[in-house]
């Protein structure tokens, strides 16, 4: 595996960013992560990881224009970069390879 090493929570955040597409801002990320992991996740933890991923060049962010609906305020939207998507793909490929090895018959 080449590229950046991803921590478990980093991987989850990155996956969530990818899943939420252009609705990935911190509150929505916190909500979806809390719902899917069934764990209490603080906003600070989400931001810590978002900033780390940003520093690794795996995601980038932009500030959206306010939109005319409830909660349609200005938001910081997070987007996975090419490297970020590649990292997710890499880690997935490794998982699949590892799973194949485990299922192969042992020699000797």
């Amino acid at each position, binding site marked *: 595996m080449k590229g950046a090493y991803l921590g478990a929570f980093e991987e989850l955040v990155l996956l969530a960013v990818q899943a939420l597409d252009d609705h990935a801002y911190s509150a929505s990320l916190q909500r979806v992560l809390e719902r899917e992991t069934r764990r209490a996740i603080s*906003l600070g933890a989400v931001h810590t990881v978002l900033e780390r991923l940003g520093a690794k060049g795996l995601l980038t962010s932009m500030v959206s224009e306010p939109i005319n609906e409830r909660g349609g305020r200005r938001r910081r939207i997070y987007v996975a970069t090419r490297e970020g998507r590649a990292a997710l793909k890499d880690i997935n490929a490794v998982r699949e390879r590892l799973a194949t090895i485990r299922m192969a018959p042992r020699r000797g």
Partner: protein
Amino acid sequence: MTSVRFRLTHLAAWVCGRGDVAHGQDLLADVVELYGDRRADRGPLRAGARAAWDVITLVIRPAPPRSLPSARSPLMRSLTDEARQAWRAVRHRPLVSLSAALMLALGVALTLLTLTVVDGVLIRPLPFPGGHRLLAVYDEFRPESGLTFSRFALSWPEYLDYERQSQTVDLAAFAPAGLNLSADGTGVERLIGARTTSSAFALLGIAPALGRVLTAAEDQPGASCVAVLSHELWRDRFDSAAGAVGRTIRVNGQACEIVGVMPPRFEYPDERARIWLPLTIDRDPNIRGNHGIAAIGRVRDGSSYAAADAERATLMTQWAGADPHHKGHGIVIAPLAADLAGDLRLPLRVLGTAVLLVLLIIVANVSHLLLAHGESRRRELAVRQALGANRLRLVRQMMFEGLLLSAGGAALGAFVAWLSLGPLIAAYPGTLPRAASIMVDGRSIVMAVAVCAVVGLLVAAVPALRLTKKIATGTGELADRSGHAGLSVRTQRTLVAVELALSISVTVAALLLVQSFVRLQQTPLGFEPSGAIAVSVTAASGAGTAGQVTAFYTDLLARVRAEPGVGAAGAISSVPLAGAPPPDLVMIDGHPILPPSQSAAAATADYVMATPGVLEALGARVVRGRALALSDTAVDAPVAVINETMARLFWAGVDPIGRRVRYPDGVRDDQWTGFGPWVTIVGIVGDMRTIRPSDLPRPAIYVSHAQRPRPPYTGRAMGLVVRTSADAPNLLTSVRTIARELDPQSAVTLVRPLSSFADAAVARPRFMSGLMAVFAGVSLVVAVLGVYGLVAYAVARRTREIGVRIALGATRPRIARLVGAQLGLTVSAALPAGLAGAAGLSTWISSLLFGVAPFDAVTYVAVAGILALAVVAAIAVPVRRAMRVDPIIALRVE
């Protein structure tokens, strides 16, 4: 209230956003949004607690580390890692790194210095647009013409014919001239300028900075005098006034209107020219043998040098067929840049090659140093490879180390080179052609970076490949404790052998050049330069008649001789070594008179006008007869003194004293139109070296200045030679005062000790041999350091083995032999290679040698001897150390 709340939220946003309030507000809005969601599910209290917790975690969240491994480019990341590790490795062994960097600095400094000069003189394009298309145009006399001159002035008919017939070349003619300039009644200034045809300005492609250049109408006879000034003259003499154009100045007493000013660095025909005047084209077809103009050309657009030269060759064949005058004689062309560099091309190429050899020696030595040191890093490299570093990565890291060392060395070296460039050029006592092009600029930086990169990679290449190879092939001993010579020792020996061989070659070449220089300085000049001063004087031009000029010099000399401290004084038209006297056709009484087309081969002798007293002032030796005397006046029968070479060549076995010579007057239709008066030879003077000390003396006639039997020579500009104890500036002042009193229009300039001409004449050999000596010294020291390092390393490595041998009864001399044996092999391989290289180099430089043969056995043996002594001295310390190995201690180390 509102304001307090606003301030509180502002503060909270500031804290959450880490100083970025806008970002903090977004974060707080997220908190509020989540609070809204949760309140619906879990009620305000629990939702509020969660919100508070969110805020706390936001505030205390750790900042991301400054440098996280970036996913941007894995290669880039690994390169920066390697660079960092390389820097660590370099820092980890400061002594090795420092000595390597210093050695490289020395090499880079020498290389840059030499290459900058080579670039400026040989490579840089001329300061004219399309400068590579410019040509030098000469006449040549090949031996079948009876004369041998590779570069001779053209005659007008030749110039005009070539200009008319050539389809590929544009031409301009010029004649360099020393001119006396006066403006508005201020003092007379002696200037170097050129008379030139108007075509020169368009040909060189430079427009005037002010006013206009010369026009074609001004090339014609009878045109009024106009002048174009150089930027320097305009600045210094006319205070850069725009009103200078249109003013009238007096040049050689003639009124000339200033019509234009050229931009700076208009170096035509060379960088000394300060003023340009029209050169009148002479269309008389009968002056084909009157060679007096210089020419430059430009290859026309759409043509090439090769085509131009082919066309010229065809034309010359036609000329030779049509006119016997052109048998073995015609026009030749050469690229101007190469022509300006002239015979400096070979010396500069030799210096460039020598300095690259020195750099190579230094590279080999640093390479050897890193390799020897790398042996002790083998464990580190093996561990890193075990941890997954591949060979490429290790090689790359070591390349980085090399580049770091060479960057450090190059930075220091470039700085030193930059500091010493000015003094180096100033140390060259003659004029270096195109000296203005020798400068430090973007080209130099590119050169420095290129040298640095190449050196860095070269330095690291051998150690990197050698050291990682062993691991890669898997023999992978972590520590070599067996005492066997490691694989790299053989490579080290090879490197040292290369160093020795190269340094032998450079040293032999340097020693040959130094000997040439010494021989050159010991060459008897035929006159005594020390204690004499030369002053350049020009008598009034214009109205002055021949009698006035003679009277001026007679009076001037009489009064100069009366000055305190003056021993002897006289005037001569060509001060020896200050400028070549003109060779002139002379007719010898009793020899048949040949037509002009054939007579050139008959007798040519340097024509020198001299006053009484000048031979004494020069310290020349009168061999027979008498010197010129005051009694040889214009009304007496003309007399002359000749030199020994002339006596030997033209009157072999006969006493020339009392014999007569005369000069032809003019030529028409291959017939002499008349002859001057007979000149009787009254004395023979010892040969003087007049052009360069290395040139064999030519036949010379010293005629009486008062008699001047050859009318074209006016004798206005003369060199005063004064043997004096007074110092130069004082003499200049008194000569100038006297000259002004005698003739207000006269110019007195350029006072120089006669010895400075002698020095300038050997300037190039001195410069060359001095630099080569420095290169040789550096190469020897570095090579010998390499030998020392090799032996010291071998001894340190084999301490245990030596201890065992001593314990088993080996005698000390036996140990010394043991250590020396391997070195013997290295030296015996290096010696023949080095001598062979030296032979090649010497053959190449043989034309620069004087009085010493390129295969001078003594020099070769001496260099081999010097090197042997140096090697013995270098290994003395480590061998002594080996002989004193205490077996107990040596074995205890294990």
